[in-house]
């Protein structure tokens, strides 16, 4: 059984450690390989285990069949050998070819793809005789997933330690640590809660005296006590209400502060996180962490925590008094408790599963909203309003149907518990009733006791609810902390290299990059750009142009090689200083909700109106802005929806220009404007780019006329570079693209 389990886990999580399993190592010769990978699929398509170990001079295959390991091949890394990966859907094949003949073919699932991709790259370099350095973990940002050494589970990227093994209590302690900043509030609130609860224990006792000594006709009846007793009861009640007020007020305020702190902390931290994090997490999920999760925590701190504390005090307090006063009756009171606990446990489990399901259906419903509302224009253009309504109706109904289960479960549980607890009361009645009648038991004690019983059963009735609240709160707290625990992958190192004045020289030194660790989007790119040079970057769509400038801005770090700005690796520079000196116009210009002025001055909020107009003029935006009734004070809608695509581009050019960057990057900056406007912008940029390094990406090659040098990227490779004339003479990809565009041009000119 254990073996079966281990095998399953191995297939599930793969060999994420530093070394392959010891027995595999032994069979392969006992030496630590440079790299290794697990081919987890057999030729038949079933899960299996074949290890690929890459050494300095050879490639070794080890297969496990029926538990026994055996060598499955050994290949010397030399000319004539080649390794390949044939990609497929969900899995791929790793092929070793010797002198043109297939020597080995291994299947692996996508789980193992990162390892294989790395191994392939290094193996082929070794075959060619290059001493390719082994990519180290942590060097590039694409890293292996960590697994927990204890449970072998995947540790999510954001967590330092395995959250599965982390005890829930630790999360609550962490939450509690946020309240420590407000000792007065928490002291007052909790103090009031405890005092109020203890006061609650007094009235039944008074009732006993009232009944036995005042109301019951007997020789030692003391009528004079009546009013004092009533007054004391009144005072106790007033005090309790006052304490309740103090408690609610202080705790509500406390949790407002705490959730505010948490919200701000999460937002602050999100600002620090790298782009890679944002592209992995759905936006809606991140928003809900800041909004609804913190809100749920508010509820929990304000009411949940005290509810639990109060319930505990009540249970312990009432039980203590009950056992001191009437031990026999107290024991009888406990009879229904075990059964109610069992019922509650089942209820909690059922609720948990229903809530989980409901949550999934709910998010399924809201996903229609986040999909359709921003796409309203497309829906209308294709007249699909009815279908979208139908889609939403269906999913909403599914939610409603499922919520019925919730109510059914709830309404089934309550009566059962009520019945049980009432049964407890009945037991007490049937035990005490005959004894009261017989005079062996006094009425006052009995009524007092009933008061405590009600107090004792109360929290038990709420047990299910409290548990649910508790679970939801810990989950929310975890979701919030998980953001806070994510380290930014891109950050300024502790020791930066002082760089002096920013000049704008860019150099790529054998840079390779991959978004997912499998597919290489940039391969071994090297080039140099001198300060003040104007570079045109062109090539087929998907060639990696935007990716390349993402690396210059250090939105991502390369997997291999270095990106240098002014001769210093960008990873050693101060991140903010770097980005401040780079002006970018992104391919999809994004404007914020706000005025035109605010948007243009986004990177430089202190700019004077004169400077803002200068920048707008340079971007050829001044004229259309003045044409708006509100001029520069025009409000733009969310994402800049209220202006045209070309206008949006020009506003974002103005924004980049206003920062007066030493390095200007234009990613298809003029793709949505007409040729005449483009020409004007081009002229303005030409004026502006004097003394600045400029990297301009364009599909319309005519845009790049003024470039000193052109670089052509195709499928992640820098295939050509040189001046227009040189590239035309070389008659390669650029010349081809250029010819096609000129033909098109003359076609339209006719």
């Amino acid at each position, binding site marked *: 059984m254990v073996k079966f389990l281990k095998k399953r886990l191995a297939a599930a999580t793969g060999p994420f450690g530093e070394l392959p399993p010891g027995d595999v190592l032994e069979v392969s010769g006992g030496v630590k390989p440079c790299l290794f990978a697990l081919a987890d699929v057999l030729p038949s398509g*079933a899960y299996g285990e074949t290890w690929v170990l890459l050494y300095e001079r050879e490639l070794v295959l080890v297969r496990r069949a029926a538990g026994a390991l055996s060598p499955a091949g050994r290949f010397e890394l030399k000319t004539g050998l080649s390794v390949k990966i*044939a990609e497929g859907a*969900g899995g791929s094949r790793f092929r070793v070819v010797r002198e043109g003949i297939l020597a080995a073919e291994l299947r692996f699932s996508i789980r193992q793809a990162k390892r294989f991709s790395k191994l392939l790259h290094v193996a082929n370099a070794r075959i060619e005789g290059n001493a390719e350095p082994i990519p180290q973990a942590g060097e590039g940002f694409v890293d292996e997933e960590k697994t927990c050494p204890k449970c072998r589970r995947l540790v999510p990227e954001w967590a330092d330690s395995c959250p599965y093994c982390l005890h829930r209590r630790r999360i609550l302690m962490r939450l509690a640590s946020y309240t420590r900043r407000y000792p007065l509030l928490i002291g007052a609130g909790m103090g009031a809660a405890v005092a109020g609860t203890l006061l609650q224990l007094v009235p039944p006792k008074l009732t006993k005296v009232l009944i036995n000594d005042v109301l019951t006709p007997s020789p030692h009846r003391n009528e004079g006590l009546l009013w004092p007793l009533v007054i004391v009861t009144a005072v106790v009640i007033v005090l309790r209400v006052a304490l309740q007020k103090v408690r609610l007020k202080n705790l509500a305020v406390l949790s407002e502060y705490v959730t505010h702190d948490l919200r701000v902390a999460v937002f602050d931290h999100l600002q620090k996180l790298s782009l890679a994090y944002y592209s992995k997490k759905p936006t809606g999920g991140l928003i809900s962490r800041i909004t609804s999760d913190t809100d749920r925590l508010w509820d929990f701190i304000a009411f949940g925590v005290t509810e639990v504390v109060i319930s505990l005090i009540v249970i312990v307090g009432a039980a203590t008094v009950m056992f001191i006063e009437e031990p026999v009756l107290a024991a009888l009171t406990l009879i229904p408790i075990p059964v109610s606990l069992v019922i509650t446990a089942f209820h909690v489990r059922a609720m948990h599963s229903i809530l989980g399901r409901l949550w999934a259906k709910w998010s399924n419903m809201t996903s229609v909203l986040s999909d359709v509302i921003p796409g309203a224009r497309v829906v209308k253009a294709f007249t699909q309003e009815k279908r979208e309504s139908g889609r939403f109706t269906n999913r909403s109904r599914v939610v409603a149907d499922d919520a019925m289960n919730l109510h059914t479960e709830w309404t089934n549980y309550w009566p059962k518990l009520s019945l049980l607890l009432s049964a407890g009361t009945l037991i007490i009645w049937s035990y005490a009733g005959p004894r009261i009648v017989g005079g062996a038991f006094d009425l006052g004690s009995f009524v007092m006791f009933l008061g405590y019983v009600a107090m004792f059963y109360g929290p038990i009735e709420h047990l299910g609810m409290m548990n649910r609240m508790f679970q939801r709160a810990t989950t929310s707290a975890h979701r919030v902390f998980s953001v806070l625990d994510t380290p930014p992958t891109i950050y300024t190192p502790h020791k930066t290299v002082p760089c002096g004045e920013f000049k704008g020289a860019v150099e790529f030194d054998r840079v390779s990059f991959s978004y*997912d660790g499998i597919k290489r989007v940039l391969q071994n790119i090297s080039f140099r750009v001198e300060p003040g040079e104007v570079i045109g970057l062109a090539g087929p769509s998907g060639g990696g142009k935007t990716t390349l400038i993402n690396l210059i801005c250090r939105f991502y770090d390369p997997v291999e090689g270095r990106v240098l700005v002014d001769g210093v690796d960008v990873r050693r520079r101060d991140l903010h200083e770097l980005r401040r000196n780079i002006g970018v116009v992104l391919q999809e210009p994004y404007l914020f909700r706000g005025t035109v002025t605010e948007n243009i001055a986004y990177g430089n909020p202190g700019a004077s109106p004169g400077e803002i107009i200068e920048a707008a003029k340079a971007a050829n935006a001044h004229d259309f802005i003045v044409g708006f009734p509100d001029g520069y004070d025009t409000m733009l809608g969310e994402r800049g929806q209220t202006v045209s695509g070309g206008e949006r581009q020009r506003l974002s050019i103005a924004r980049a220009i206003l920062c007066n960057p030493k390095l200007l990057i234009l990613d298809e900056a003029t793709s949505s404007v007409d040729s005449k406007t483009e020409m004007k912008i081009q002229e303005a940029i030409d004026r502006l780019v004097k003394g600045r390094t400029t990297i301009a990406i364009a599909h319309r090659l005519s845009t790049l006329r003024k470039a000193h040098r052109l670089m052509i990227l*195709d499928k992640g490779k820098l295939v050509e570079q040189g001046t227009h004339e040189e590239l035309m003479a070389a008659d390669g990809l650029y010349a081809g693209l250029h010819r096609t565009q000129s033909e098109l041009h003359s076609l339209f000119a006719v």
Partner: protein
Amino acid sequence: MKDKEKPEPPKVGPADLSIRREADGGLALLPPGGGEPLAGVRVARCFPWTRPDSYISVRDEAGREISLVPDLGELTPDTRREIEAELVAQEFIPRIVAVHDVEDRFDVMIWNVETDRGPVELQVKNAEDVHQLDDGRVVVRDHAGGTFVATPSELDPRSRRILDERCG
């Protein structure tokens, strides 16, 4: 620096398509008019989920289409065998035959399932990674990008219930 584009691959109708397996394990196209075999041929399903067996695209190494096969029946038997074998060998989409349990662990769901390829444990990151196709099949995508598919109507009631709980 000079890197001329490779010549366009020939366009071939399904009936004239002739594909064979090379010694290095790859597929090659035998051009209809004769001549050098074109190595590095790839095949892909256009609708892998909705109509897997129609519209197979045959492409060259650079991803340019050589032939679009609306129906495998139009091919010569040898070529059809090669293409079908290749399609099966390049895919790895285990079919879930039983769901033992699903644990919720904060951000991650741990699925403990039995597939036609063997037992496996999946770590699923988002609720959206479990979704139902229009034909009722449920597709589960795990953290690494692996795809697993289940047909609820073929599962035992317990598995079906768990599956139903997890997808909207």
